[in-house]
């Protein structure tokens, strides 16, 4: 018997209303999807594909113009559910600075639990646990402006972890980080998924960040146009190119080599895989 999904989108469409200096436009068109607990799902798409809009529907920051979003059995369009939904689904945003609200790291990580009315002694415990989970415990008394981008994002993630959510949605969390910061953040969210069992919905346009996902959804113009394992998705190099997405160099190379008659399978994801296929060990 199949378990109930943690998140279910049923024929969701969303139109941004016309505003000052902006035309109204339809960001989501008839989107249906399911995310199950403990999954690591990546959503890929270029700017304007609707992926950010999708993310904001999961924790009821936006509600559908038509269709329905149900999270942990709760309908997001019901105002009374919103608070509980936001405890179950936390969200990390793109700009590391504009999420940190307090003057020290530990105060900020405590912000979420404070909002939930958790007793102070319990908050203390959660703050310590959350900071340890993202490897930022030594920085607990630091002010935010003295942290690097990667460190700030980890603190933001800790701020969500301290609320003990079932799922974390990350909306392009590495877009403003340097390579070191990106690695820190990706390592952290994979570990949280593996070791704490937290469901992860990771929105990005960086192909190399989806390699470790269980499932990849590719969006374009408000629709899901491709879905599958990373390998399945990466095999579609031409389609991805048309969607103005980049594939890692090895994947691109793999496809070119196949065209030239070299026998490598489609959807090569890493350098190691390519090496293995080109030089099978004896």
């Amino acid at each position, binding site marked *: 018997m199949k378990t109930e999904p943690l998140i279910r989108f049923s024929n969701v469409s969303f139109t941004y209303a016309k505003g000052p200096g902006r035309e109204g436009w339809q960001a989501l068109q008839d989107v249906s999807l399911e995310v199950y607990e403990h999954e690591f799902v990546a959503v890929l798409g270029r700017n304007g594909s609707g992926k950010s809009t999708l993310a904001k529907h999961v*924790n009821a*920051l936006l509600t559908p113009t038509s269709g329905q979003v149900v999270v942990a059995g709760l309908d997001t369009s019901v105002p009374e559910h919103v*608070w509980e939904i*936001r*405890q179950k689904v*936390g*969200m990390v*945003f793109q*700009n590391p*600075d*504009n*999420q*940190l*609200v*307090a*003057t*020290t790291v*530990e*105060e900020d990580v*405590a*912000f*979420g*639990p*404070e*909002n*939930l*009315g*958790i*007793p*102070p002694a319990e*908050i*203390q415990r959660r*703050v310590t646990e959350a900071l340890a989970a993202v490897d930022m415990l030594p920085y607990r008394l630091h*002010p*935010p*402006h003295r942290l690097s981008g990667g460190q700030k994002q980890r603190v*933001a993630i800790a*701020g*969500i972890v301290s*609320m003990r959510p079932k799922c974390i949605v990350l909306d392009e969390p590495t877009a403003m980080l340097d390579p070191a910061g990106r690695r820190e953040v990706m390592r952290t969210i994979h570990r949280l998924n593996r070791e704490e069992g937290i469901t992860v919905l990771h929105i990005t346009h960086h192909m190399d960040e989806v390699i470790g996902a269980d499932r990849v959804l590719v969006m374009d113009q408000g629709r899901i146009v491709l879905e599958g394992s990373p390998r399945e998705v990466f095999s579609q190099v031409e389609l991805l190119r048309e969607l103005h997405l980049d594939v890692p160099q090895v994947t691109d190379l793999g496809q070119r080599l196949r065209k030239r008659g070299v026998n490598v399978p489609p959807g090569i994801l890493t350098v190691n895989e390519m090496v293995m296929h080109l030089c099978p060990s004896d």
Partner: protein
Amino acid sequence: MRFRNLTIGQHIPGDSIVHRLDPRTKILGTVLLIVLLFSVDGFVGYAMAGLAIALVIHLSELPWRYVIRGLRPLMVILLLTVGLNLFLTEGEPLFRLWFLTITKQGLVRGLMMGVRLVLLIMGTSLLTLTTSPIQLTDGIETLLSPFRRIGVPAHELAMMMTIALRFIPTLLEETEKIMKAQMARGADFQSGGLMQRAKNLIPLLVPLFVSAFRRADELAIAMEARGYRGGEGRTKFRELRFGRMDAVAMVLSVVYTVVVGVLF
């Protein structure tokens, strides 16, 4: 680069008796000091207040030069106050300088105003030197929360203060970045008269304001995503607790203020 040295609130961490007092005690103590300074008359009264301040400085284990340093930025106001009183008070003339007259009364008043101001600055400096910004906001919020029923937005004020303190260093960094970017296009922030310099600030202020509004927007969304819905039902990570020392300090302060204020 000149912004990097700014320490917000000049808080110097420490472990003295004063540092460990509840922030509410210190805030109320400062209020009492202000009341005292405005109710005494005559040098003896000020000397008594000065004595109390000296005692607290001693207990705080802070070097005197830190407290004195707080006077520097306010030097101009100090000199202005003393000067105005010196030269503009009616009474028995003592000296004549050019077209200005210093009277005996002026001398006395000028000095008293000066002393009062110095003590005031030192007293409030002590507050910020021994209390971290978080403690200050917590203290103010807790002190004001009984007044919520009559409409005082204690929690909102504290939240505003926290966010302001949090973003000041970030905004300063951004100011520097914008300045450099505009200077790279030939902007001149240094020369010109007052009007010209004000106009030259537009390429700095407009982007800064636009950015500040964007930050506020994003921060608000992030706060909502973390379940923020105002002060209702919120708990606090750090709870303030009155200790024995606080009770002692409060009682002593009140008694001292009343006695000295009445007698002097």
